[in-house]
């Protein structure tokens, strides 16, 4: 494969290549889709022990209130996200969405309260637009800075705590969605107990020039295996987590995407700070009435994976399409194909039988609760 030469590199690109990463273009970056062990082993190892991921392509952004009062930055950001940012305590993060005037979703992100500023992590493919969006709407109240000199490393899996604790014992006491300053190998790191696999684990922001040393230290631990984007995708799919641009996008609303949980009560109709974000009328009304279509889990009956783009039908033959698969593949931990897609609300109940068309043949699929695996976050 020849890579376009304008692909961007992360602080760990050379490290990934040196460890046998099969590099592909992804969101403008040269990223490893897999390592020599392959997607299946990487996936299973992450669920059994610990996986190490380079996610430095993601955008890291600081919102600093010009007034010096964090609540000003929180309230300003609430104009763009339907999320309770003001209520986010120091050292905590939560999932959020940038919404559009028509109720669609511009991106999903993590929002952390870092005492005197907010720290955002956004998708690589959207980061330029997100930062422009922030500057346009929040530029008066906030200094907006993209941290381009930092790497982001995810350490995920049941052994992640034990592995990271060897460098910083205090991380064992962190809870899910907690964010802390931690010194790792003598360098200041921002550690969040969170991830995108359904497993316990951490996402670690470190200065770019310290990334390789830290990654090598993790990898020297026999419990850790390098994991590429292929297994990252199957891990998050089994965990029922949305991939922006696939499972949610500008054409889907939060209720359609089944991520209403990301909109706290205080921002909903009747809440103290109801609405006030783009598309609020549409998005909040849909929370009350229910969306006409919803994102659901899909379990194919056979062994054939049902992939993104497969069209869903209500009947085995004939009829109009009723929906579409937005993510799908083989779930190594489920040991069966798994998928997600959109169906009419009337067909969204668990165990409803539908048919997915693959190569001209209709395969039975069943609506399934999400996630497909048991999430193992450290909530307490």
């Amino acid at each position, binding site marked *: 494969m020849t890579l376009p030469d304008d692909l961007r590199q992360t602080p760990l690109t050379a490290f990934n290549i040196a460890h046998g990463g099969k590099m592909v273009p992804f969101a403008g970056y040269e990223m490893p889709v897999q390592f020599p062990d392959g*997607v299946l082993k990487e996936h299973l190892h992450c669920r059994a022990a610990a996986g190490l991921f380079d996610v430095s392509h993601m955008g890291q952004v600081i919102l600093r209130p010009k007034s010096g009062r964090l609540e000003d930055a929180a309230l300003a950001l609430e104009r763009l996200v339907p999320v309770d940012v003001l209520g986010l305590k120091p050292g905590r993060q939560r999932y959020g969405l940038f919404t559009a005037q028509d109720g669609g979703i511009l991106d999903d992100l993590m929002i952390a309260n870092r005492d005197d500023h907010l720290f955002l992590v956004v998708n690589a493919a959207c980061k330029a637009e997100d930062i422009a969006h922030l500057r346009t709407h929040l530029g008066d109240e906030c200094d907006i800075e993209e941290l381009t000199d930092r790497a982001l490393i995810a350490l995920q899996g049941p052994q992640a705590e034990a592995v990271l604790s060897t460098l910083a014992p205090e991380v064992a006491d962190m809870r899910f969605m907690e964010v802390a300053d931690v010194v790792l190998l003598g360098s200041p790191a921002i550690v969040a107990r969170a991830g995108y696999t359904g497993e316990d684990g951490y996402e670690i922001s470190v200065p770019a020039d310290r990334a390789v040393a830290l990654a090598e230290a993790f990898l020297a631990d026999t419990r850790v295996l390098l994991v590429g984007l292929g297994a990252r995708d199957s891990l998050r799919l089994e965990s029922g987590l949305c991939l922006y641009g696939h499972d949610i996008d500008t054409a889907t609303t939060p209720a359609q995407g089944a991520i209403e949980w990301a909109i706290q009560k205080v921002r909903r109709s009747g809440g103290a700070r109801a609405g006030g974000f783009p598309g609020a009328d549409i998005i909040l009304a849909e929370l009350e009435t229910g969306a006409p279509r919803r994102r659901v889990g899909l379990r194919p009956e056979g062994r*054939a994976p049902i992939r993104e783009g497969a069209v869903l039908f209500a009947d085995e033959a004939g009829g109009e399409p009723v929906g579409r698969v937005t993510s799908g593949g083989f779930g190594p931990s489920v040991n069966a194909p798994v998928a997600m897609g959109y169906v009419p609300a009337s067909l969204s109940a668990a165990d409803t039988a539908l048919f997915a068309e693959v*190569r001209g043949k209709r395969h039975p699929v069943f609506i399934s609760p999400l996630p497909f695996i048991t999430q193992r976050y450290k909530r307490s």
Partner: protein
Amino acid sequence: MLKFTADHEWLSIEGDVATVGITQHAAEQLGDLVFVDLPDVGAVLEEGGAASTVESVKAASDVYCPLAGEIVAVNEEILADPSLINRAPQGEGWFFKLRLANPDDATALMDEAAYLALVG
């Protein structure tokens, strides 16, 4: 007689029957296989026609019929355990047996050295 195609299939030919599978190189490139779809015994396929589909953890790929003929057997074991293809692509992981319509056509296919040079 062992022959290869540029589409990464191998054929082991005895008389007018070819045992067909995918090459070691193809299996490595595809990654871990999780599903395989085989043609029906008795199906008559054209050269280059879609004979089978393999799905890896990454993507679906078609396997083409390397020469015209009739399917006389399929490997049920790879249906039950597609990882057999990864473990022994040029042995136990064979796909199907094809009774060649024109056995002489096989002489035009690549030998192993030519195939290895192609993928080298």
